[in-house]
């Protein structure tokens, strides 16, 4: 089981490394989208500081949803997904490995890019730390939920927009507590409670999303 997880995970990383520019596109989207907000809202530091956590989180959400569309599409198109499901190996592990790969390729770069935007939006050090920590706990939730949406919409004409419609409502708790952590720190309180709830959401999603994804894959491939 562990070998299967590692093999699939490393395979996805290796495949992405062969198309580096393509792998970077979600982060590029994130950077461009976040940069548009000061242009739209105005460059006042007070306003920017106020909207920064929300903007960074919403753009991270959208970047995750846009990139998760192709999570299973490539394997589905060349038939390897069907082989994986027919191989008798646990589809839950396959789903977990694919989600982990997605997080490493898109979630992690977003986490790394987030402090930079904290500086651009004139946030102080504590808030930047809280934002980054909340993204560390929150972006895996997005990859796991996105994986369910991606499996459900496999091979559909309007998969991209559908995933956004299906998954965004489900990711609202992560958004609320992720931005809430930064708000708490800025209000001079401890964000520990927010981290705990985000952690609980992450554990709950990690336990339920891979089985749901595996069921969705079987429905879509059947």
């Amino acid at each position, binding site marked *: 089981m562990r070998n299967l997880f590692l093999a699939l995970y490393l395979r996805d990383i290796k495949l992405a490394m062969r198309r580096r520019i393509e792998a970077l596109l979600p982060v590029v989207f994130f950077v461009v989208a976040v940069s548009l907000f000061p242009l739209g809202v105005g460059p006042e530091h007070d306003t920017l500081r106020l909207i920064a956590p929300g903007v960074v989180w919403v753009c991270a959400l959208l970047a995750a949803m846009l990139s998760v569309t192709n999570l299973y599409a490539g394997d589905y198109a060349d038939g390897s997904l069907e082989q994986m499901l027919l191989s008798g190996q646990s589809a839950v592990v396959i789903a977990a490995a694919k989600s982990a790969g997605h997080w490493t390729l898109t979630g992690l770069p977003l986490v790394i890019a987030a402090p930079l935007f904290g500086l651009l939006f004139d946030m102080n050090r504590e808030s930047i730390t809280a934002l980054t920590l909340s993204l560390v706990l929150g972006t895996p939730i997005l990859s796991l939920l996105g994986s369910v949406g991606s499996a*459900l919409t496999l091979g559909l004409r309007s998969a991209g927009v559908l995933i956004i419609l299906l998954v965004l409502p489900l990711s609202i708790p992560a958004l*609320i507590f992720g931005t809430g952590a930064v708000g708490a720190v800025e209000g001079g309180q401890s964000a520990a409670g927010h981290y705990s709830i985000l952690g609980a959401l992450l554990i709950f999603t990690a336990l*339920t999303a891979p089985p749901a994804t595996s069921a969705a894959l079987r*429905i879509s491939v059947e």
Partner: protein
Amino acid sequence: MTRDITMGKKDSASRIRWFTFAAPSRFYSLTGALIPWLWGAAIVLTLWGLYVGFFIAPTDAQQGESYRIIFIHVPAAWMSMVIYLAMAFWAAAGWAFNARMGAMLAHALAPTGALFTFIALWTGAFWGKPAWGTWWVWDARLTSELILLFLYIGYIALTEAIDDVRRSDKAGALLAIVGAVNIPIIYFSVKWWNTLHQGATISATAAPKMASTMLTAMLLMTFAFWAYAFAVVFMRARAIVLERESHADWVRQLTAGKEQYS
């Protein structure tokens, strides 16, 4: 295949009562008989409920006449939540027991649920303007109701986007279950996020804080909405049955009969 058929025979002998109306043909004839009564009940109860609500119930001390939209708003909000659960239940039942009728009922419930959610939001906005001085407040209940509308739209969009009926049923069932599991989590996170709404007016544990005529009107409207929902969902389900079972003999006979008369 043959094994399925023999198993089906055995099943129908031992627990026929349970699955009698799971057969689309029986469902079709039963609901065909029920629909006129349901429509009648819906119309009578709506007229009665609106009369009690608009003419008999007393004027509210604080909100004046504008509170009377509660007689549509609250039952619609109740229906929007009940129908989502019913939809998830039937979709799950259809998936788990491979019962065609369950999936068809889930499909038929979704538009009505979305309609009630929309009515609840719309009347809420109309009520919010005189009560709070604004059309929309980002508070827990309004926001969760809006998210519920998104969940309905997501279910309808997904099932409509998949051409293959079996896949569409199962994918919709999975999505409805995932949504039903997430609704409490979403509700409590949104509630935590902001609570500005007035406290719940009716709860199962506490005594209602309203005049009994108001309660009567609200209950009448709730029953009216139930009757309407049953009637319109049965009608939609019957249409889906005819569409999906068009290859079956009883549908052919039915439509052949129609053609002769017309």
